[in-house]
């Protein structure tokens, strides 16, 4: 029941985000979408993922997007509004993506997958949270991807700092 409420909120706010012309309203409805998706994660016993989603997307990415919109447009200007361009291509590509995704989901036939039937609702199995398991997995089985991701982020950070520095006149 709760799942359907949050799913409906996520879909409605997501649709509003796409359909509204005002970029700022789109940003704020993205907040609602992200919150309801975090709620769905909680319902799936993925508490750590839910909080990380809030931390990274709401606290970081969304604030950055809003800042970007506010700093790049003047208040009394109409530039907060977005315009329709490339209607033909947009419709074609989104329809193709929809067809592709529907076909894949239909082909997967997930109601007959064996692990769905074996899945247990008591995933946590006495654990208070998934943090310990995630931590152990990150430091053992997935240590290489984890470290590579950190290296990638470091490179991105250095690149951003380099672009932002003023060029010294020699």
């Amino acid at each position, binding site marked *: 029941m709760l799942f359907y409420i949050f799913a409906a909120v996520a879909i409605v706010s997501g649709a509003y985000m796409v359909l509204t012309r005002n970029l*700022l309203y789109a940003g*704020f409805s993205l*907040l609602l979408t992200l919150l309801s998706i975090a709620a769905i994660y909680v319902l799936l016993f993925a*508490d*750590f993922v839910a*909080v*990380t989603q*809030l*931390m990274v997307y*709401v*606290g*970081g990415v*969304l*604030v950055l997007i*809003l*800042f970007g919109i*506010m700093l790049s447009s003047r*208040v009394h200007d109409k530039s907060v509004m977005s315009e329709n361009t490339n209607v033909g291509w947009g419709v074609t590509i989104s329809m193709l993506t929809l067809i592709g995704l529907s076909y894949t989901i239909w082909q997967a036939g997930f109601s007959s997958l064996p692990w769905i039937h074996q899945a247990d609702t008591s995933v946590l199995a006495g*654990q*208070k*949270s998934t*943090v310990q398991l995630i931590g152990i997995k990150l430091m053992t089985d997935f240590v290489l991807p984890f470290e590579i991701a950190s290296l990638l982020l470091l490179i991105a950070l250095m690149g951003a700092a380099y672009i932002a520095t003023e060029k010294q006149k020699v």
Partner: protein
Amino acid sequence: MLAFLLTLMLLLGIVIVLAYAERKVAAFMQDRMGPTEAGPFGSLQSVLDVLKLLQKEDIVPAAADQKLFKLAPILIFAAVFAGFAVIPFTPDLIPAGIGIGVFYLLAIISLDVVGLLMAGWGSNNKYAMLGAMRSVAQIVSYEIPAGLAILSVVMICQSLDFQEISYQQGILLNRFPGLEFETNWLFGIEALGINTTNIGGITTWNIFRAPILLVAFVIYFIASLAESNRAPFDIPEAESELVAGFHVEYSGFRFAVLFLAEYSMMVLVSLVAVILFLGSWNTPLPNLTALKFANWTTGTVGELSGILWGGFWLLSKTFVLLFLQLQIRWTYPRLRVDQLMHLCWKVLTPVALGIVLLAGIWRLLMV
């Protein structure tokens, strides 16, 4: 639902006392009397202020963005209030005892930032906009040293659960499920050979278990001043240049909600500081041979005495920190924006990174 109402009532009570204390402390620091008329020593002043605000007309500026303007105060207060959900008030009283409370708190506070942007933009006023921008830039920057200071506590305590961190800092250590066979040593080092598990009191607070956390506490406290827009980090509402910052257009009930959210933020950051560094709801008095001060001032868990003692210690420690916040407001001049960023990125963040490293080493000594 009961936890929601109780926490809200408690919070309203604390905020009203705090608003009165703010006036009285400010008056004392400036050698004035402060409020004297309403009630004995002016103690009803803040209650009457709230009543006055509730009666005022709710003005929405014609040029403001109606929807955002009206929604913003609710979002800001909801974000701050949601943080209280994971605060343990006594050994067995916590609104929502989730396992990743500390991480949740850090994430939910960042929701506040979105509300501030909404208020600033919705007001359609350049002072409000500038105030919101400054406030958000400041909060986002100071989350980093605050987060690192909290991380060093989490490394020492090996837990993200506020209640577990609380139990670790007192004589009730072995009462928490999963910690039955733990022992506390003086300064956390077993080699010293002084077992403080049954001594309790101040010797088992986090700043004593790992003295390095004393530095982390100072960093967290400075960063928490910035996160709640308190002086000396109050450039977002610098009245001499921005009138009042992001809430300049708000009046009546909406202003009361913003005001409440701001004071709740002060209470929340002080509560978190007390829980993480200053022994949470544990008594500061240690057991000294025959004089069992710690046992006498802890009460029995699960009974009324435990609840009363726990709440008393937690709130009185919080009020000490709140008093410090009020006092600092009238002691230090406001920082310029470049000084603010210099302090955050070039002083606090490197020191906090060093503390995290040292906390890791300390934890190895503790095992």
